[in-house]
């Protein structure tokens, strides 16, 4: 294995830069890592995550593909079975669906159906989520589909540091990972992140803010909203704990139970429509395993149960008001 040259110890990075840095480090360390997707070559990807990669690693490892997500994911499956570690970029997660079949029928089930002989160490990374005036097809948060598919892992970072570490863990993981990048905060925040590869473990949540009255459980871009809501409620004497799940499948049972036991009140926050959404899973888990801790209803906050709008994005997306109302609903029960 080659080594990554480290000059400074850290670099001030946006999430886009952090993801790019993870790609460069892993591709440098592991010659089996390749990446493929639409416009990821000379264009550098529409969000510039892969900017310059084709010059560094060549056309064989940075593969501009025809416009076909079925091919991107399907080819990645075939590469992964062969022994590569492909990172497939889907330009917007809304456009994954032409390739959904390959993900859920093949990538997710290959290990199981071959009794462990074949497996798919691959990552499908894709920007997701609203808040960028993207309308119905550049804003969705379809994690519910992936979490409902045994065999897939699902990861969504909330900050640059986690983004790099989680992506490296995902690339090194031997199972297929859907890596959802919250595009709303791609350039929202800069953090000093280590140069050189490091891992943030899959399956482990993080406490984004300690608190004692209510557990606000969320992930991705919504973590920032959760923190904002927590600040808003502080003067009112409400002390909100924010749990950032980071990995949605497998989710961190212990961390969830610990915070629920601590506060007795739960609000679940996601961008996606509530009905059939991922947070239903967390609610069900708590209602089965931690009901004895509950001192109020489990309240979900999400997008409304409609397709994602364009002009009315503001009326649609969860906001501080909606979150604080939910918190009050469970606290004032």
């Amino acid at each position: 294995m080659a080594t990554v040259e480290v000059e400074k110890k850290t670099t001030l990075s946006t999430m886009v830069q952090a993801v790019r840095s993870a790609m460069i480090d892993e591709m440098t360390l592991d010659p089996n890592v390749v990446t493929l997707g639409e416009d990821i070559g000379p264009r550098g990807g529409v969000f510039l995550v892969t900017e310059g990669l084709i010059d560094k690693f060549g056309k064989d490892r940075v593969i501009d593909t025809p416009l076909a997500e079925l091919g991107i994911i399907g080819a990645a499956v075939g590469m992964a079975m062969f022994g590569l570690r492909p990172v497939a970029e889907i330009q917007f997660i809304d456009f994954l669906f032409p390739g959904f079949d390959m993900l859920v029928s093949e990538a997710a089930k290959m290990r199981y159906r071959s009794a462990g002989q074949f497996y798919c160490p691959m990552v499908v990374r894709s920007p997701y989520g609203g808040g960028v005036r993207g309308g119905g097809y550049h804003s969705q948060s379809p994690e519910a589909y992936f979490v409902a598919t045994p065999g897939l892992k699902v990861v969504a970072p909330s900050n640059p540091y986690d983004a790099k570490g989680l992506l490296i863990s995902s690339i090194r993981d031997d199972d297929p990972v859907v890596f959802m990048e919250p595009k709303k905060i791609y350039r929202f925040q800069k953090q000093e992140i280590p140069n050189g590869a490091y891992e943030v473990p899959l399956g482990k949540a993080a406490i984004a803010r300690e608190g004692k009255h209510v557990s606000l459980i969320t992930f991705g871009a919504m973590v920032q909203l959760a923190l904002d809501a927590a600040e808003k409620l502080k003067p009112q004497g409400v002390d909100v704990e924010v749990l950032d799940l980071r990995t949605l499948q497998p989710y961190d049972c212990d961390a969830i139970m610990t915070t629920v036991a601590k506060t007795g009140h739960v609000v679940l926050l996601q961008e996606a429509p509530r009905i059939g959404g991922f947070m239903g899973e967390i609610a069900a888990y708590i209602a089965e395993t931690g009901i004895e801790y509950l001192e109020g209803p489990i309240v979900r906050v999400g997008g409304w149960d409609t397709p994602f709008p364009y002009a009315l994005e503001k009326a649609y997306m969860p906001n501080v008001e909606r979150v604080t109302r939910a918190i009050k609903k469970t606290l004032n029960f």
Partner: protein
Amino acid sequence: MQIKPFTDTPIKYLEYDGRPSADVKELGLSTDDYLRMYRELVFARAVDDRCYILVRQGRSGFFAQIAGQEASQIGSALPLRAQDWMYGDHRSQGSLMIKGLKASEWFAHQLGRMLDPSQGRLMPHGPGRRDLNMPPPSSTVGNQITEAVGTAMAQHIKKSDGITICYFGDGATSEGDFHVGMNFAAVYNSPVILFCQNNQYAISVKLEEQTHTKTIAEKAKAYGMEGFLVDGNDLLAVYAVTKHCADKARAGRGPSLIESYTYRYGPHSSADDDTRYRPKGELEMWRTQRDPIMRFRNFLASQKLWDEKKEEALLVDVKAEVAKALAEAEASPVPEMMTVLDHTYAAYTPQLEWERKELAAELGV
């Protein structure tokens, strides 16, 4: 009008300098027709330019220019009739406006106002209008293709005298949708025109990286379908070929694939930076030597139908019309916040009723 089957030389009626290279008379177009056609080209370009400014002003969040492709869009839309269906893609406003979408509606769409037939519910890449038989273009590249074929199947089943046209780009031909749509169209001999605007790029990906054939049109053979390659910057050629295929579809002689070979001047969309992938000089060549509007103007001039004075008058006129359309759009209200839940289902579900109450509380209304 005789249209010869596919060769890899694009069908042309006009030379690059506008002189007729085929018998344009056989198209049966009157002087008025020519003048209207020219006006549509100029108008489309003017709308395009105006939208570009809206984006730069930050007033519109997204815009995909059609500049360079006006002949392709207008020439292919003109042969259609009211009962025909049109499925656009993310870059077809030129065609949508020929079918009947008003410029004011298009601007309202860009601005997300209520005058937009989609009432601000779509990223502005094209609204639909039910009364024009024109569904809202799909965002997901290629999705419109099997739908258009389904509509054409329905037209056949219901013995409608309408046909369907479906627009998509060169990149879209790589999706499964293209393949499946082509196959269904051929198997059911459906009255549909699959109209591919090959502007040579899918965002940054050049056609030679998209597929290993020289043309798109030749792919038709793999479906037992007729394919045509037309010079997409030659308004009369696009018109002639599309008219031919429309007549053929109406006569029950099935579907056609048309490849309209053209070029886009703008970046892929307002979010793109085309300097990253466009070779130097290419754009300039197309702009100065292949422009569809210039070509048609030169044709008109060659027929003694146009001069500088007419041009000036037209530009003044078009400018005023565009300004008026934009003003109308701007006068239109933005959608009410509470309407965000509407039109999810035919009627509100209990769950949405609940959410309506929550939203009202949140908005304090």
